[in-house]
């Protein structure tokens, strides 16, 4: 049986890194370390001697890390995951998800694959989550703005709530715009004219 792999995760998104860490632990990888700040990272790598380093693709320190891997005599030289170009789909999936990974030269590909797959799926899950959150927030905002637009119309045109909504919807259909957009422009126009 081969030695358990030591994995280092470099990600300044604390929530995401803990989600990935948890996933790796559940999958039986005990030696997972997480670094959220790059301060002292190089020393940390020298100390931990990780077999696999997973880095958030948007981390601005990737150039520095790659340089360090190139020149370091202290750690076994880690290579970018992409050095193995046979699995194009996997590489694309990793970059799409925002994951870059470096592995110690000579480590068997089969041992790395599940780790990378786990990282990719959790990265994707987190971005889906934050997208949904942003959408939920904007939906809520849109509903609020529609309510304000209705209020304005009810007052200005002496309509009831249903009539105001109908007017908004008809305008949106005529102008081929979303009802939220119509409401937003109505509210901003009304605010510009004062008397809100």
């Amino acid at each position: 049986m081969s030695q358990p792999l030591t994995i280092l995760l470099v990600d300044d998104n604390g929530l995401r890194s803990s989600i990935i860490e948890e996933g790796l632990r559940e999958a039986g990888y005990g030696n997972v370390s997480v670094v959220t700040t790059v301060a002292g990272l190089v020393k940390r790598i020298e100390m931990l001697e990780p077999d696999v380093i997973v880095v958030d693709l948007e981390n601005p320190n990737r150039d520095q890390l790659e340089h360090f891997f190139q020149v370091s005599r202290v750690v076994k030289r880690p290579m970018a995951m992409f050095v193995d170009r046979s699995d194009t789909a996997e590489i694309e999936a990793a970059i799409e998800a925002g994951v870059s990974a470096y592995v110690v030269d000579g480590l068997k590909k089969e041992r790395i694959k599940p780790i990378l797959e786990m990282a990719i799926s959790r990265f994707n899950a987190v971005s889906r989550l934050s997208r949904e959150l942003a959408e939920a927030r904007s939906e809520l905002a849109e509903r609020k703005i529609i309510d304000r637009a209705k209020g304005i119309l009810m007052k200005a045109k002496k309509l009831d709530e249903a009539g105001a909504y109908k007017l908004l919807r008809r305008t949106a259909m005529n102008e081929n715009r979303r009802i939220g957009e119509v409401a937003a422009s109505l509210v901003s126009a009304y605010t510009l004219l004062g008397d809100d």
Partner: protein
Amino acid sequence: MAGPSFVRAGYVPLLDSAVLIAAAEKGFAEERGVVLSLQRETSWATVRDRIGVGQFDCAHMLAPMPIAANLGLGPLPVPMLAPMVLALGGNGITVSNAVAETMDRCAPEGFDETPASAGRAFAAVVRRRVEAGEAPLRLAVVHPHSSHNYDLRYWLAASGVVPEKDVEITVLPPPLMPDALAGGGIDGFCAGEPWATIAVQRRAGRIVTSRAEIWRRGPEKVLGVRRAFAEENPETLSSLVMALCDAAAWCADPENFETLAGLLSAPERIDVAEAALMPGLAGRLETAPGRFRQIADFMVFAGGGANRPDPRHGRWLYRQMTRWGDAPSSDAGLRIADETFSPTLFDAAMGGTGTNSPEAGERPAGLFDAED
């Protein structure tokens, strides 16, 4: 003609990404029938990776990067072309206040007037440290395959300082340079604007020389294009080069500097104050608090054939790569570098056979010690 062509391009938020940003935002791309979709990245590694898997068709790139890709260096190398130069110059060599003060003591006033005298002053500081048994100074560049790295090393070596032995050279992202300098993590750096200017504005250090003085009119950033994209979309690429040349001419006009600085300072672009961008655009740098120096050709976007790739520059960059052990030296490598900087596509797009400035021999005429 078919509808507009869609081009995806990556860039790193630096002053010399101006031409791409202006092309996308001031309508130059649109006028040529190109929809230019820009994506900002925080590292050259990510630009390289996205080019590698085809998420970008082209990108704002350090001039040696496409050569490195064609030499098969680094992860995910794909065949690339550099059909246009996006900027010349633009980098400043900045040292900490402590190093600058020692340079003041070691050298006559005004040592920063030329790279040679600045180099002598810097070498004197290095010698002092060796005599005193102090640790070597640590200098940072933005990427190994960068003109920052090669120009810094060229300047050091020409001044009698041996890189890796007399000074340490490390890699750091540009936005972190001023703070690293202030905090003592590094003793100096070579980075593109606005980061030298910001280091001085934050009182973290002084600019002692610049790339424009070490190698005047040397190519700094190029448009790196996937060769596969170029072969499949020759017309689109041609239109893109024309649009970028229009944008470059606009960026180079001093009348537009303020508008350009406004455009670039936006949070979704470079996200720094306009006051940090103007010195680089105008070539009038605040080299020390309250001290200004006008540097000829400091940042060149267009004019005098600036945008036309020059195979001799490709070969020179390759020679620097081999000099510092980043690539093995071979005739095949030299040919690859030459071809990467071929002006064929540029000439086809711009409808001419522009000429590169005459330069005798292999050493570019713009080097500060070219006469030696």
